[in-house]
C-alpha cells in the first residue's frame, strides 16, 4: 500500500524571506584591518579592541568555528578579503539563497479511518506512514549535510546545528517528519536573528509542542514538561526558578497545541487565571511568560554562555560571560550582532581557543571531506555521524549533545579513523566489522567467535532512521551457540545501517583524491616535506612534533618496504598513491585531527 491519504506538498518558501532579512553590507575587497569596524560594533565596554594579525591561522580558525572547515583556497581567499569584511561575508553568506527542500506532509489517518480498517490493514498502514516519515527525514538529513558540505552560507548551517542542539526535538518522539523539517527551517531562517523572536516561534513550533508534551498541557490538567525545559534549558538555567514557578509557568503555556500538524491556539484549553511566576503575579500567557524570562538577568547570561562554549570550545570566565551577556541584553538579543562581536574579538583567536576544541562528529566528517575535496554521499556522512554519537534529528536527550570530551570514547575515537579510512578508500566496512580471529585453537565446545552469515536488526525493512543511540548495535555479533569455526570465519553480509553505508560506499562513492599530485604541487620531495604538506592540507590544526616524528618514521619504513626512492614518492603510481593514502589515514586518525 502506498501513501493513501492525500498528500500536501508544502513548499518551504522561507528562503526568500530569509534573504530579505539579511542586512546587506558592502564588502570591500581591500585588506583593511579589523580595527575600524570592530570599534564601531563594540559597545563602550572600556576595553580596547586590540587588532589581531589577519593571517591563515586565524582565517582557518574562523572558518572551522563559523563553518565546517576550509579548503586551502578558501583560507587564502579569506585572508585576502580582510578580517572585518570577511566576517561580514560570513554573517550574510557567500551565496545565501538556496534551493529549498520540498516537504511532503505524510498524513496520518484519523481515528474513524483507522477504526474502519481491519487489524492487519491498520498495522500495515501505520507502518507505511512511519516508513515514509523516516525516509523523508533521511532525505532531508542528507540535504542538510549537503548544505554544510557546499558551505554557501556556512554560518547559517552552523547556527541551524547550534539551535538544533539547543531547542532540541527528537524524531523518536515527533512522528511527523514534516514537523521536524519545518523546525529545522525555522532555525535556518531565524537562527541569526533576535533570540526573543526565535523563542516566541518555538512555543508555536509543532515539533516542539509535541516533543515537550504541550498537547497534554491544558487548563486544570497541567503537564510541566515544556515549562520546565523552557526555564531550565532555553532561558535561565537550573537554580534560577523554583518548582512552584514551573507549576505556574505550565499554566501559562496551556492552549498551544498541534492540530493536523499545525500549531494552534485553543482558547478553551488555556488557563486564564492569575499565575505567580518568579515573583510576578498576573494573567500570564505564553508570550508574556517568555517576555518575563527575557527580562531576567539570568537569561542573557545563559545564552551568552551557551554561544561562547559552542564557538570557543572552552568554559568562559565569569567576566567574559558578563561582558557578552550585557552586550546581548543591550542589543535586544541580536545573535548576528553577538557573533560579529565575537568573530572580531582578539580573545577568540587566542591560543586557548584556536585548535583547542574537540570537533563534533559532523565537524570531523564534513571538515575532513572538505579538506580532502571529496564528495561523499551526504547521507553517508549523516549515518556516520550518528554512529559517532551525533545523530541529527535524534539528540540523546532534551539537553542536546554534551559535546567536548564527551564526543570521544575509546570506541568513537577509533571509529573516526575508520570513517576517514573509508573516505580515503583504504578501509572497507568489512575491515572494521571483521570477525575476531582468536589466537588459540578453541577448546572443544568453547566459544568459537564464528559469525553467523547475517546481521540482526533489519527486520523493519531497512528503515532509514534506525532509532539507535549512537553507534549501531545492528552489526554482526558472535552467535552464542555457534559451532566452533573450522577455518577463518567468513565476513558476514552487511545489513541494516551498516548495510546502507556499505552500499553507499560501494555504489555512490569514489575517493577521487590524488595525493601524489598534491605533493608534487607542494614540491614535497622528501619524507619530512611529504608529511608536512599532507598534514597542512588535512589537519585543521598544527601537527605536534611527536606525531610528526612518528609519521616520518612510518613513511620512511613503508616506502622502503615498497622499494620506492624518497625523491620518487610522488611519481610512483598506484603504490605511491596508496602509501600516501595510508599516511593520510594515519594523519586523520591522530589526536590532532580530532580538534578544530
Amino acid at each position, binding site marked *: 500500500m502506498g501513501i493513501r491519504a492525500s498528500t500536501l506538498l508544502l513548499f518551504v518558501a522561507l528562503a526568500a524571506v530569509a534573504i530579505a532579512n539579511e542586512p546587506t553590507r558592502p564588502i570591500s575587497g581591500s585588506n583593511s584591518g579589523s580595527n575600524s569596524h570592530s570599534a564601531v560594533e563594540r559597545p563602550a565596554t572600556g576595553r580596547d579592541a586590540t587588532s589581531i594579525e589577519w593571517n591563515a591561522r586565524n582565517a582557518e580558525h574562523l572558518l572551522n568555528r563559523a563553518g565546517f572547515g576550509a579548503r586551502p583556497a578558501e583560507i587564502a581567499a579569506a585572508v585576502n578579503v580582510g578580517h572585518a569584511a570577511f566576517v561580514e561575508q560570513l554573517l550574510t553568506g557567500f551565496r545565501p539563497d538556496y534551493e529549498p527542500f520540498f516537504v511532503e506532509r505524510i498524513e496520518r489517518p484519523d481515528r474513524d479511518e483507522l477504526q474502519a480498517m481491519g487489524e492487519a490493514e491498520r498495522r500495515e498502514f501505520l507502518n507505511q506512514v512511519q516508513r515514509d516519515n523516516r525516509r523523508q527525514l533521511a532525505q532531508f538529513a542528507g540535504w542538510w549535510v549537503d548544505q554544510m558540505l557546499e558551505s554557501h552560507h556556512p554560518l547559517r548551517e552552523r547556527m541551524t546545528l547550534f539551535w538544533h542542539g539547543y531547542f532540541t526535538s527528537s524524531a523518536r518522539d515527533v512522528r511527523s517528519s514534516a514537523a521536524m523539517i519545518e523546525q529545522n527551517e525555522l532555525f535556518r531562517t531565524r537562527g541569526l536573528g533576535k533570540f526573543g523572536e526565535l523563542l516566541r516561534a518555538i512555543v508555536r513550533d509543532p515539533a516542539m509542542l509535541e516533543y515537550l508534551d504541550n498537547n*497534554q498541557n491544558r487548563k486544570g490538567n497541567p503537564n510541566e514538561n515544556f515549562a520546565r525545559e523552557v526555564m531550565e534549558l532555553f532561558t535561565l538555567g*537550573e537554580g534560577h526558578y523554583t518548582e512552584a514557578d514551573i507549576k505556574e509557568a505550565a499554566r501559562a503555556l496551556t492552549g498551544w497545541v498541534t492540530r493536523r500538524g499545525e500549531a494552534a491556539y485553543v482558547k478553551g484549553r488555556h488557563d486564564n487565571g492569575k499565575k505567580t511566576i518568579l515573583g510576578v503575579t498576573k494573567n500570564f500567557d505564553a508570550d508574556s511568560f517568555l517576555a518575563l524570562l527575557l527580562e531576567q538577568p539570568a537569561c542573557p547570561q545563559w545564552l551568552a554562555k551557551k554561544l561562547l562554549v559552542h564557538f570557543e570550545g572552552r568554559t568562559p570566565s565569569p567576566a567574559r560571560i558578563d561582558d557578552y551577556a550585557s552586550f546581548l541584553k543591550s542589543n535586544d538579543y541580536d545573535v548576528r550582532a553577538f557573533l560579529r562581536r565575537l568573530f572580531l574579538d582578539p580573545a577568540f583567536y587566542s591560543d586557548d581557543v584556536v585548535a583547542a576544541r574537540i570537533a563534533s562528529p559532523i565537524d570531523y566528517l564534513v571538515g575532513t571531506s572538505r579538506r580532502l575535496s571529496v564528495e561523499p554521499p551526504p547521507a553517508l556522512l549523516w549515518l556516520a555521524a550518528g554512529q559517532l554519537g551525533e545523530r541529527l534529528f535524534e539528540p540523546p536527550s532534551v539537553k542536546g549533545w554534551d559535546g567536548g570530551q564527551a564526543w570521544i570514547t575509546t570506541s568513537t575515537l577509533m571509529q573516526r579513523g575508520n570513517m576517514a579510512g573509508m573516505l580515503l578508500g583504504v578501509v572497507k566496512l568489512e575491515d572494521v566489522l571483521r570477525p575476531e580471529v582468536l589466537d588459540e585453537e578453541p577448546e572443544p565446545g568453547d566459544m568459537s567467535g564464528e559469525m553467523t552469515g547475517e546481521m540482526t536488526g533489519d527486520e523493519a525493512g531497512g528503515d532509514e532512521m534506525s532509532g539507535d*543511540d549512537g553507534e549501531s548495535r545492528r552489526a*554482526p555479533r558472535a552467535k*552464542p551457540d555457534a559451532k566452533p569455526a573450522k577455518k577463518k570465519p567468513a565476513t558476514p553480509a552487511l545489513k541494516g545501517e551498516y548495510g546502507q553505508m556499505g552500499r553507499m560506499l560501494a555504489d555512490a562513492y569514489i575517493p577521487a583524491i590524488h595525493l601524489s599530485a598534491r605533493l608534487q604541487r607542494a614540491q614535497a620531495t622528501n619524507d619530512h616535506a611529504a608529511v608536512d604538506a599532507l598534514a597542512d592540507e588535512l589537519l585543521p590544526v*598544527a601537527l605536534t612534533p*611527536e606525531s610528526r616524528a612518528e609519521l616520518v618514521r612510518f613513511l620512511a619504513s613503508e616506502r622502503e618496504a615498497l622499494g620506492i626512492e624518497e625523491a620518487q614518492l610522488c611519481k610512483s603510481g598506484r603504490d605511491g598513491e596508496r602509501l600516501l593514502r595510508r599516511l593520510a589515514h*594515519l594523519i586523520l586518525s591522530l*589526536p590532532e585531527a580530532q580538534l578544530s
Partner: protein
Amino acid sequence: MTSRPFDRRALLTGFGALGGLALVSSRAHGAVRLFSSELDPREPAPHMLLLVQLSGGNDGLSTVVPYADDAYRAARPTLGFAKQDVLVLDDYKGLHGELEGVRKLLDARKLAIVEGVGYPNPIRSHFKSYEVWHTADPRGRAAGQGWIGKLGDVAWRDVQDPNLVVHVGANVPYSLESAAHPPAAFVNPASYRWAGEKEDVDAYGKMGDSEGKAESNLEFLRRKVADSQASSQKIRSAVARYRTDVEYPDEPFGAALRDVAALANGGIGTRVLSVELTGFDTHTGQRARHDNLMKQLDRGLTALAADLERSEAGKNVVGLVFSEFGRRVKENGSRGTDHGVAAPCFVFGASVKGGLYGKHPSLTALDAGDVAHTTDFRSVYATLIERWMGADSSRVLGQKYPTLGFLG
C-alpha cells in the same frame, strides 16, 4: 601554520619518568596476573560492580507498587495497579507484574530491594539529578569527578589498565569520569577497532600516550588513543571467546548484558561495568511504555543473573539498578507522571543477601507532591564500597553514611 610545542614526551624520557614507568608496568603486570584465568588460589578473586542506569526517571510507584494504599489509588486513577495486577510481596505492596524474574531472584534471596532511595533537597532536573547520583555530591559536576572515579583513586590508585572501568553503550555516564582511570566504552564489540594494515595499526598505536594527564584536550586525546588500542583487542577477544548457554533477549539491552557477562568472565582486569536502559521519562501514555521497559529490565536481569551464576567470576559481580529520580505521586493529565523524587533500587548478585531493605515511603506525608526519601542513596553506595569493593567509603563519599545489610 606554526606548530605549538608539546614536549611532554621529551620530559618523560628523563630518569624519574622512566622509574615511574617501570613501577607502573610492574603493577599493571601484577594486576594482569591477578585477574587472569590462572588465578593464584591464595589471592582473593576480585569483586566487580555493575551499574545499571534506568535513564529518564523510573516510576518507583509502578515498580514496587503500594497497591493497598488508598492514597496511591486516589493519586493514580488511570495508572494505578490493583492487587491482581502485581506480584504481591505483602498485604501492602507488590512488584510490577512484568518483574517475574526479579521476583524469583528476590525469593531466592539473590536480589535486594532498597525502598525509598533518594537524597535531601531533591532536584527534579534529569541532568542535575544525574550529576548528584553520579558524583554522590549535591554540587554535581562542580564537585569533581564521578564517584567511580573517586573509588578508583582510593581502591586502585596507580593501576593502569584501560579496561578497569567499562561502559557498554553510547553515552558514558559521568559517574565513570576519572582522570586516573578513564573508562573504556563501546557499543558493538565486533567493530571496536581501528582498521588498517598491520604496519599502520602499529604506527597508530604509537600516536597515543598512556601516561597522559589529560589536562588539555590534546593530552586527553593522546591518552584516549593509547587506551583505545590497549582496550579494544582484549575486549573483542573476551567477547568472541565467551560461550554461554543462557539466552539473552534479542534487544540492545540484552546484548549489552551479554557483553557484561563476557567481560566479567574475560579475565581482562575489569572492576566496574556499566550499562543503560533508556526511555523512563514517561510524561505521557506511561502504562504501555513503562510496562515494556519493566519487561526489558526483567528479562535482561534474569538472563544475566542466571549467566553470572555459572562461574566463579560471575559470582563476583554485584549489580546496582538505579534511576536519577522517581516520579510524582499524582499522575498528570496525560496518563503520565512528572518528575519526582525517591524510588527503589535493586541490588543483585550471588553474594547479595536478598530481601527488602529500607522503608516504603509514605504516600500521605508528602513533600510538595512527592514522597520523601527514606534511605540516602549514598548509604547504598557506602555499602557497595565498603562491603564489596573493600574501600573506605568515607574517603570516596567525603563522609560516613550508615551501611545497609544487603552485603557482608
